[in-house]
């Protein structure tokens, strides 16, 4: 069937396509500019800190030249930390944007589904019941978990339990957004109650360890952790990008999407599974980092609109940018002490979110 056969010459070739090209170009410019900003911010965040390093030295070290001590600081501490911020920022943000579409709710975020609450419960369980958390205070600054791997593993297990409960209920009740959101709310309060119960019986050392774990901190990851996070983030990101047309269709309404041949229930279920997995990894390794998954997609929406072809990649960029800048600020603010980035994301995220809301509803 050729609907346009022989009618092409009627088209005013110049008007519409040109305007559309200009409109697309604006979105692409936004992404190019953000990519450049992200790169510059990466260099900056590596350069600044307790010991300031010159930009030439940073570049030299990154390209593999040996610049003495500086190389060690960059390769062992600052680079993995900065990259962890970018990778987890991308992961949380892209999961957020997908969930906002899947759940048909602008408040959707990786934490809507209760995954982080389950992880926090897992960490508390590990510290208090399994005893992974007798702290030792390292002279320099922070408390450290005595057995971080076990805490991470248990936190991850509980996020997976939450994910499977969620999927089971969604499957049973045909994966409607309302059911998923309400299940998420129920799971979140269930696990929060569980955590409170455990904390009630904990001694103050354990309590401190649990609270410490909850403050999300990208400084916790080493190269190995970063490797795992990257190995989860990249396939998830690719998965969401491959589904961009499906999300566009779902945004147009379930019936329209079905009419366009989208298996709406299946897309919802899988999207939720991938987003939950992504979140579970980030939370288990780094702790709870709030607001990134909620705010970054909305920042991206301001610039590129709701069209998923552009929104998904733009959200990745805003996610990386926001978390890296928050972490850089968290390191510098109270130097030589380094704040966990989670404290800053909430401080930066909430006002930013309110600003977007007020700006957005003006007209």
């Amino acid at each position, binding site marked *: 069937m*050729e*609907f346009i056969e022989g009618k092409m010459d009627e*088209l005013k070739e110049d008007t519409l396509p040109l305007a559309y090209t200009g*409109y697309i170009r604006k979105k692409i410019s936004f992404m190019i500019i953000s990519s450049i900003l992200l790169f510059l911010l990466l260099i900056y965040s590596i350069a600044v800190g307790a010991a300031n390093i010159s930009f030439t030295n940073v570049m030299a070290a990154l390209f593999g030249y040996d610049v003495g001590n500086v190389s060690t600081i960059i390769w062992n501490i600052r680079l993995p930390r900065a990259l962890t911020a970018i990778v987890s920022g991308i992961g949380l943000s892209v999961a957020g944007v997908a969930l906002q579409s899947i759940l048909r709710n602008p408040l959707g975020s990786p934490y809507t589904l209760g995954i982080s609450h389950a992880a926090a419960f897992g960490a508390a369980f590990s510290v208090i019941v399994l005893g992974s958390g007798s702290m030792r205070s390292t002279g320099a600054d922070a408390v450290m978990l005595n057995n971080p791997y076990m805490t991470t593993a248990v936190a991850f297990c509980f996020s997976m339990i939450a994910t499977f409960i969620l999927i089971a209920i969604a499957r049973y009740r045909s994966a409607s957004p309302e059911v998923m959101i309400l299940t998420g709310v129920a799971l979140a309060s269930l696990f929060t109650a569980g955590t409170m119960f455990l904390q009630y019986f904990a001694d103050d050392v354990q309590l401190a360890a649990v609270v410490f774990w909850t403050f999300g901190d990208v400084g916790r990851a080493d190269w190995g952790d970063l490797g795992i996070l990257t190995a989860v983030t990249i396939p998830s990101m690719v998965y969401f990008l491959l589904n961009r047309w499906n999300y566009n269709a779902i945004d147009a309404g379930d*019936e*329209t999407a079905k*009419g366009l*041949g989208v*298996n709406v229930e299946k897309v919802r279920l899988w999207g939720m599974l991938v987003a939950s997995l992504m979140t579970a990894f980030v939370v288990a390794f780094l702790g709870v980092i709030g607001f990134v998954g909620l705010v970054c997609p909305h920042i991206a929406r301001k610039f590129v609109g709701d*069209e998923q072809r552009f929104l998904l990649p733009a959200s990745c960029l805003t996610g990386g940018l926001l978390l890296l800048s928050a972490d850089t600020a968290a390191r510098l603010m109270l130097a030589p002490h380094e704040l966990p980035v989670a404290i800053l994301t909430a401080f930066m995220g909430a006002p930013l979110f309110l600003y977007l809301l007020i700006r957005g509803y003006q007209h």
Partner: protein
Amino acid sequence: MLNVEGLGFNYKTRKVLEQIHFGLKPGEVLAILGPNGVGKSTLLRCINTIHPPATGTIFVDGEEVLSLEKHEVAKRIGYVPQRSEAGKLTAYDAILLGRKPHIGWNIKEKDHKIVESIIMKLELDKLALRYINEMSGGELQRVAIARALVQEPKLLLLDEPTSSLDLKKQLEILRTVRQVVKDNRVSAVITMHDINLALRFADRYIFLKDGNIFAHGGHEIVVPETIEQVYGVSATVEELNGFRIVVPNEE
């Protein structure tokens, strides 16, 4: 083109449609008429396999659609539901979405050409770069119809496509739909409440009553008895300027 045989459908235990039989030839427009809640929208969803029917078969262009993959159905059937949602995306992008069943990894030049030609045809060019969440109900309805047209379907299913259009737009949209149907030898099934509008643009009519087809045929079936039986309203049917019109006798 379209052949529906023995179609039946229930929502859980509530019986909605039973033993629906009808056929439609290429180039024909069929109007589905009937009171609220009789199952007009349900019938369209069944044909589209969104609600797979409990019984019966549906053939489009000689193929049994119930055995086709979802995206294969979408290549053959374009569906405009009674309601759709609007995000912050341009009308152009919203219409481009109609190419989804045909899009592989990325949009091709051809997809843009088709979108542009439909935009011109429906005179949506002034709206093309406006955000659809800032549009009026009627503008949005035209965008949704454009989206179904760029699917290049063999069968168009339109659920009350003119319900929020002004007088001129009602005529324009239906004229365009009819022209697309005639030019491309495809078919359209349209549910409507405005019988007079249906009488101007449709070739065939089906009146639904209590889950069954009450009457099926051309203009000739639109007579006072049918209207009385289906809607419970006594009406006069007359010819005016060459069109059959239905005027209720009550106040």
